[in-house]
């Protein structure tokens, strides 16, 4: 400081003021782009599962995203392994796959092929089995199971019920 001139001091003072201002405005700009409270709050969807047909994909909507609901046939349940079973949501004795219907690669909606009992994403050729587990690249992970709570014959999406928390504890969902 001893050697610096008065003009040098003024330059540094301006730099400090401008730096604080720039940081502050960045915080404001960042928050202006955050999802609005009204968008973030509109987040619960109830789905009635009592009339769902077996091996026929139902698409519901939750937070603007498609939700896949697939009721498995007894044969499908009998033939599946441990990892598939761990992802089943059991409502009233029936096994369901309920996931966000967006490919984990880049977010296209895969199509269900009921004859082959699997999903094909037309965008980049990814495939998933009837439990939403990826079987062909490029998707790097299974279809995402949304937070859910089982209530009688319905599930409520957006709320974390005990079944969902168990899946979380077992590492089935992140």
């Amino acid at each position, binding site marked *: 400081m001893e050697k610096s001139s008065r003009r040098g001091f003024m330059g540094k003072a301006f730099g400090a003021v401008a730096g604080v201002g720039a940081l502050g405005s960045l915080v404001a700009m960042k928050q202006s782009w955050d999802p609005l409270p009204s968008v973030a709050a509109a987040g619960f969807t109830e789905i009635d599962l009592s009339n769902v047909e077996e091996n026929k994909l139902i698409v519901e909507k939750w937070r*603007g*995203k498609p939700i896949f609901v697939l009721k498995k046939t007894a044969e499908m349940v009998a033939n599946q392994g441990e990892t598939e079973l761990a992802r089943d949501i059991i409502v009233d004795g029936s096994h369901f796959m309920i996931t966000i219907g967006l490919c984990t*690669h880049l977010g296209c*909606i895969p199509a269900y092929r009921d004859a082959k009992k699997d999903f094909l994403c037309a*965008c980049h050729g990814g495939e998933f089995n009837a439990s939403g587990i990826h079987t062909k690249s*490029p998707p790097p992970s299974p279809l995402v199971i949304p937070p859910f709570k089982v209530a009688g014959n319905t599930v409520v999406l957006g709320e974390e019920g005990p079944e969902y928390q168990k899946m979380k504890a077992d590492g089935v969902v992140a």
Partner: protein
Amino acid sequence: MAKFTKATSIKDWLNQRLAIEKVEKVMASEYWIPKNINFLWAMGMVLAITFGLLLISGIFLLMYYQPNVETAFDSVNYTIMQEVGFGWLWRHVHAVAASVVFLIIYIHMLTGIYYGSYKKGREMIWISGMLLFVTFSAEAFSGYMLPWGQMSYWAGMVITNLFSAGSLELNGVVEWIRGDYVPGQAFLNRFFMLHVLLLPLAIIALIGIHFAALRIPHVNNQDGEEIDFDVESKKYLDGDKAGSKVIRFANDFLSKDMFVVSIFLMFFFYLTFWNYGFAMDPVNFDPADGLVTPAHIYPEWYFLWSYEILRPFSKDLGLIAFAIAQVIFFALPFLDRSDNVAPANRRGAFAIWFWLMVVDLIVLTAMGKLPPEGAFNTIGLIAALVFFALWIALPFITKSEKKL
């Protein structure tokens, strides 16, 4: 204060205050251009004119377009197309120009690569040009969102998902960019702002920098000859116009430029009036629907080559490859280790490199349009690997290049 005298004319009055004669000399009549150049040197002016067309047609579209998820689609496809007098003209000019501008950008870039116009003092011309290319890409993408059709929505979904950075799963970043869980009102509004204000401002500023970058190294010529512009311009001003290697930018070179522009404009308006369909994807005439993905999502033709580099790999590898492909052209002046400024056909192995790169970009473009199945997958993968192999090979083949 400077001394002002009673003006003898309006020109003199302005000259005393704004030095307009001096400005005219610096910008036009004593801005020197080499003689030995061909029509490819007019692409810069063609681009400037195309940008002008985009700006003017955009201003008219802006007067009726509504950035609202409920009304955007109809404001374009009904109001502008059916109700506004000549609204169809502005829309077709805007769509065709947005597509053709990339054709000219690619010709402009490949011309620069072929003639070595990116080195020995011309690096900043190349880098500012690449920044323009990237900004134009963002401008094209944000504009593609605005009609809010199926391709708008799903392109928006797929491209914003890239920012989750693969296995890092940065979903918060994606939601921040969208302002929502999925592309919605906040998304449409902010991309509208980017398209009509922030990105055009950036483009205009970058065009200024791009032109300024030309002043000191001057524009290259067909032989890569180093011209002493002081000597040659003096020769010209002393009356030896035939012996001088340079001409004035205006009106001499500009007349050639504008001749090429007029041929371009005939081609451009032929497309606008009779063949605009290539610039309007049929899928985008369905309104956006978050519950139905189009059977096959592909970008406009000018993004296909980089899209195809993303596609054949696993998610993370694909993203890394895609990111590198987006920026690798910036490094061209530094990866080319040869001092030779000359057309590629005089540079030995570099000529082969150049034409392989052109063919590879065309193959990638074609494969990007085809569905990702069977043989197309394999060809796409090979073309993507060739793309990277070429960039790795570049420093080696140019290092061993013979000095011309």
